[in-house]
């Protein structure tokens, strides 16, 4: 495994990789820096990078002027609610497919996956119409349901791959020791499944948080989450770079931090186990 590498080469690799890494990260860094500038500094010519008077003013203004907390709360409810609901529905399904597989298990899994491929725009009007009829337009519960449904295939799929890694012998052993089905699920399987469930929760929370088709099309003022709130900055008046940056930083910071913990799950969750 360990290939001998000259220090020289390692230095070159490091410099090169850091350079490219920082270049890719730069737009995010620039947004964060700009959020601490005054509007005048934000558009200074030439641009100032680090040496300016740092201010928290933009964060205050964004919060006061736009009721930011409500959009944030909507995002939390919608992303959290849809993920938790999806997991509650998916656990029994994934469980039974992993531990009591039948001839049709594979077909069902693939079919579930295929529902994820349905282009949203193809069913935009029906969903819109159903939402109007049921009074779900611009409500959080409506979005919780829709985002739960679009992420359900990924949730089932991820849980299935995690559950399948739990060795069946352990179940047999516990059964031989006289454990009931209830004991088996509660004391044997659940503790082993918790890491997998947590990973699934994390990745799908991120996906739901960033979802920007249904959240833009099915909300107006009341239930709009952060995706829609940020989109409202697309036709601004006056000076706004610093405020846009502050709003953006607040919208992405929690997810960036969560995302860093979920790199591994990302591969598993989005390639449906095809790349390990």
């Amino acid at each position: 495994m360990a290939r001998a590498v000259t220090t020289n080469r390692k230095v070159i690799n490091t410099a090169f990789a850091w350079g490219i890494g920082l270049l890719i990260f730069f737009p995010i860094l620039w947004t964060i820096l700009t959020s601490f500038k005054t509007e005048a500094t934000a558009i200074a010519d030439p641009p100032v990078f680090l040496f300016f008077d740092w201010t928290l003013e933009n964060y205050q203004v964004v919060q006061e002027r736009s009721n930011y907390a409500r959009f944030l709360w909507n995002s939390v409810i919608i992303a959290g609610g849809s993920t938790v609901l999806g997991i509650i529905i998916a656990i029994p399904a994934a469980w039974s497919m992993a531990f009591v597989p039948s001839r049709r298990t594979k077909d069902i899994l693939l079919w579930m996956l295929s529902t994820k491929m349905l282009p949203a725009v193809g069913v935009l009007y029906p969903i819109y119409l159903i939402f109007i009829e049921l009074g779900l337009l611009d409500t959080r519960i409506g979005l919780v349901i829709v985002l739960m449904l679009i992420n359900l295939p990924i949730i089932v799929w991820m849980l299935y791959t995690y559950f399948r890694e739990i060795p069946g012998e352990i179940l047999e052993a516990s059964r031989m020791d006289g454990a009931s089905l209830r004991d088996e699920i509660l004391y044997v399987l659940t503790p082993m499944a918790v890491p997998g469930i947590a990973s699934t929760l994390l990745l799908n929370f991120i996906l739901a948080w960033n979802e920007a088709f249904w959240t833009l099309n099915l909300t107006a003022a009341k239930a709009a989450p952060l995706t829609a709130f940020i989109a409202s900055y697309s036709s601004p008046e006056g000076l706004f770079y610093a405020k846009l940056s502050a709003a953006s930083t607040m919208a992405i910071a929690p997810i960036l931090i969560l995302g860093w913990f979920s790199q591994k799950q990302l591969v598993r969750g989005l390639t449906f186990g095809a790349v390990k």
Partner: protein
Amino acid sequence: MATQHSRSAARLMMGPAVVLLLGWMLVPLLMTLYFSFKSYLPLRGGDLGWIGFDNYVRFVTSSAFWPSVSATLIIVGGVLLITVVLGVLLAILLDQPMWGQGIVRILVIAPFFVMPTVSALVWKNMFMDPVNGLFAHLWKFFGAQPVEWLSDASLFSIVLIVSWQWLPFATLILLTAIQSLDSEQLEAAEMDGAPPPKRFVFIILPHLGRAITIVVLIQTIFLLSIFAEIFVTTGGAFGSRTLTYLIFQRVLESQNVGLGSAGGVYAIILANIVALFLMRIVGKNLDA
């Protein structure tokens, strides 16, 4: 291991998920099909009766159709090309021994976690704005005339923004694949005197073949339906109207539901063709 009893319990446990997804798939799909054969204008008379395949014909013969197809192809193709080529190079680089590998990886992956509306707006205003954007400053610094990115080079700009968002995904998956490569094979080739380009072409690239296919298929499905990036940058103007965006405009902006639904059926068929290939690969992997 499975008894008759546990079988029926299993079916019961799967029930809710299957029923919900079945409903989610079938109800809107059937409604879209239904509307696509009707002249249906909610704001101008409502349901005006059955018109057969008229919507399907009108959708593809409208003057907006072919430009939207080419915009879609350019965006999907451009982003795929950039993310796969750069993704392979970046994955190989990140696989090399270096200091601070974990941090570099975090920096590279970060864009994937930025919500689409934020990345589109940040690029639009802070980078591509012809007066105050960083690109404009850079161009002026070198004595060039700043470019009106989103109107004069709208497709290129959108490809750039979307590539930035999806490069982490390609890199991460390709890196995972590279790390599963048996390093003994590479060492053997190295000892036999194969130079790095040859090792890349004959060992690394074939090993990555499957991962690249998966990246291409999954990204294609997501890229075909990008929406927010266009919604907040150009609003479909300046030749950046994709098929998805065209359907959105027909359905919600001009409220021609019949016509938009016919377009939706085309989009569904297109996505299914791509999905079919993806499912075959995923399915094969399930057997293993």
